[in-house]
């Protein structure tokens, strides 16, 4: 097990290097530059722009810039934002709590809906419950978040005037009032994201469970006289979870990456909105750091999923 872990971690190093080379090259080759916003301001002459480009080393060859970035990264220096003139890690850490809170809770909500609904549907396939759940899942999966988000805003913020549609990172209220306000401003983004994710996962959990529920060992368990509840939870679900774990584990990095569209609509100051702003302004160091962290997380959660398989199914061994 320890040997396996070490080997996997060592394999991850060249993958990460490869990813960083590709990311850096693509970003460097992409058109646009961080100071284009100045171009239309006649009070800032082109020489100032040129001086800034030089100051930040934008005119050096790509390979030089890449190695400078790599060496800094190895020293734990994530880079320096062209636009904010702040260290990139400061920018990212500011956004982590809100991202984890909003996106994290929405994923938990999705799981809390998807697991019971999916399993119950599979246990009683083609029942009324299953049909309604499947239809709703299909509808939820087909409606993009920008649509449901706007719909909720129109209904709850504009028509009914119950909820604010601008999310604020630091509320001034304290105590009980803080929780009320926090709930009011979070409920819409969390619902939009959670329901969308839940719809997809429900379908997935249902089909994975259906695959297992027909197998002979389930019939054996039932004929032993085990209660239906025990059959489903102990025998079916545990075996059905392997593909679901893969899916969920690979979705987890997205929790960190944020949800770009939803964050834009509700102005949630998460990493997704930081990333999209950085991309729009060609703030390469921020884009590079955020995407690179995402790449690391994907590799890490992949590894975690592989380790979880062994726990779920002892027949899988690590060599």
């Amino acid at each position, binding site marked *: 097990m320890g040997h396996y872990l070490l080997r996997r971690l060592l394999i991850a190093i060249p993958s990460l290097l490869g990813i960083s080379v590709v990311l850096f090259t693509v970003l460097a080759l992409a*058109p*646009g*530059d*961080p*100071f*284009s*916003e*100045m*171009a*239309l*301001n*006649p*009070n*800032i*002459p*082109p*020489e*100032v*722009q*040129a*001086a*800034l*480009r030089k*100051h930040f080393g934008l005119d050096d060859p790509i390979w030089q810039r890449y190695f400078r970035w790599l060496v800094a990264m190895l020293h734990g220096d994530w880079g*320096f*934002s062209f*636009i*904010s*003139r*702040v260290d990139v890690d400061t*920018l990212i850490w*500011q*956004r982590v709590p809100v991202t984890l809170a909003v996106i994290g809770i929405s994923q938990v909500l999705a799981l809390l809906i998807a697991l019971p609904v999916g399993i119950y549907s599979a246990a009683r396939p083609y029942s009324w419950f299953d049909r309604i759940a499947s239809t709703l899942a299909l509808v939820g999966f087909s409606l993009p978040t920008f649509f449901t988000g706007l719909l909720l*805003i129109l209904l709850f*913020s*504009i028509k009914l*005037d119950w909820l*604010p*549609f*601008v999310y*604020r*990172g*630091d509320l*001034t209220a304290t105590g009980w009032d803080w929780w009320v306000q926090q709930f009011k401003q979070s409920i819409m983004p969390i619902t939009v994201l959670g329901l969308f994710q839940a719809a997809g996962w429900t379908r997935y959990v249902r089909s994975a469970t259906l695959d297992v529920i027909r197998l002979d060992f389930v019939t054996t368990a039932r004929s032993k006289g085990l209660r239906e509840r025990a059959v489903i939870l102990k025998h079916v679900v545990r075996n059905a979870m392997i593909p679901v774990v893969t899916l969920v584990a690979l979705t987890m990095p997205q929790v960190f990456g944020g949800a770009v569209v939803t*964050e*834009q*609509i*509700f*102005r949630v*100051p998460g990493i997704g*909105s*930081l990333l999209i*702003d950085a991309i*729009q*302004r*060609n703030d390469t160091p921020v884009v590079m750091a955020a995407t690179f962290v995402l790449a690391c997380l994907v590799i890490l959660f992949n590894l975690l999923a592989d380790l979880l398989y062994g726990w779920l199914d002892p027949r899988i061994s690590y060599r």
Partner: protein
Amino acid sequence: MANDRPAFDPYALGEGAEDVRAGRLPRREFSVGLAASLLGAPVASALLAFAGVAAAQPQLSYKPTKRGGGGPLKMLFWQGPTLLNPHFAIGAKDQEGCCLFYEALARYDADGNLAPILAAAIPSRANGGIAADGRSVTWTLKKEVRWHDGRPFTADDVVFNYGYATDLQTAATTSADYDNIAGATRIDAHTVRFEFKKATPIWDRSANVALVPKHLFEAYVGGRSRDAPANLRPVGTGPYRFVDFKPGDLLRGEIHRDYHAANRPHFDSVEIKGGGDATSAARAVLQTGEYDFGWNLQVEDEVLTRLEASRKGRVVACPGGDVEMIQFNHSDPWNEVDGERSSPRSRHPILSEDAVREALTLLLDRKSIHAFVYGRAGVATPNFLNNPSRLNSPNIKDEFSVERANAVLDAAGWKHGADGVREKQGRRLKLLFQTSINSVRQKVQNIYKQSCAKAGIELELKAIAASVFFSSDVGNPDMYGRFLADLQMHAIAGRAPDPDVFMQWFVSWQAASKANKWQGVNRSRWKSDEYDRLYGASASELDATKRTALLIAMNDLLCREHAVIPVVYRPSIYGVGRQLVAPLSGWDNALSGIAEWYAEA
């Protein structure tokens, strides 16, 4: 008086105004004479105002009688500030954020006149602030002004800001604001003098640059500028003190109890929330009233009008210097000359012909563009120079006429070909028209294409992603400085009321070329000895009235020679909550006057 002089002698005008000021000539007579000679009455009175004849100046009415008590002020910026050092500001959003904490010597009001903030008074010839030889300006500073940390604000701070911004290693974006200044000298604790490199009428360019405290930044000049802790925790003289900042997301401030102006500020706290899109920002201010102020609402006017119907807020349009224009490429974009396309030495095969440019000008339906595309966000104008109104020329008329365009082209020998497109000497009248991707610009492109088709001109439209089009990366052929097309459309921002920088867009030595890495601002590569001469005269003309006349003459030359087609001038659009009273200006940051803002009960 001026009647016996040639209609275009700008010096004649200035002398007339001098006479009025000295009491030699009754004001009315001067106006009548002017109107009869070449200008309309409004311009004549504007000239008088500019020459220093006191006009009835409306006093700003600030009602609150005590400091604070206004509760929170909530502002929504769809692009939030990303940094808080005014000398590093990349865009207007950053300058706006700085305005909460930092202040300048003065700010420009809605009419483009300076109003003092940290200065005790605005320098003028009369009070001796502006040297008669135009080589220096002396500012007297307001006394009893303190930084948020209690240290006094003095002339040393002003001198320091000059040195800080002009050090190339600091990489300050404000360095250009000081570029006509040779040095700053402290006369006494509250007097500072800027010496100019040469005699200049533009003494005010650095007046509205926000000032940072010397004692917190002096250790961080030049290469170390990025390490200053105060870059992220501003300590200024402004009406609000810094509380919290998350770049691009949220900026918060609280009332500064020792602010230097009486009874100000009114609000107990301020916040700027960033992110999202302009339409929902407009909605939060105009429709739900969740926010008190919405910045730069670039939203279709029709949508704004609909949102305004809820009466939670109103839209305020502040005319400034921004002009949307269609530029002709006066050089040849299709053939290499001296190793580059669009070389300033070449001439455009079709557009060098006056008749074609005149026809193209006649084919632009500005009134429809104003009415159906821009609304309040773009006012139709035939002039390049529109604001402040004292600089607006009355001589150029907006004319849209397909018939006249056809007549002009017929007379010039352009004959309709088999497919309806005109031809002459084997050349088809087909032009490539590029702009940035932006729904409003694409609508204008299409309107223009249709009317051009009616006159037998075929326009091929091209839209380029804004980040590429406005890029400073000269390696990209689609960048607007390279201008590898026949026509291109974009806006130019005239932030300062003095249009000196603005007018440089057409002087010959600014022509963008490979030699200057396409950094010249004359991107249309227009060349006119007459224009160069007028510009040269305006840059050294110390008499404000004569200078105004020169600037108007330059505008008229541009329009008469069809060097460029102005489309609309674009006021800044803000959303203001129902109770908020906010003196806004199109010539300065929206928040530059935030100390004067208050909420009506």
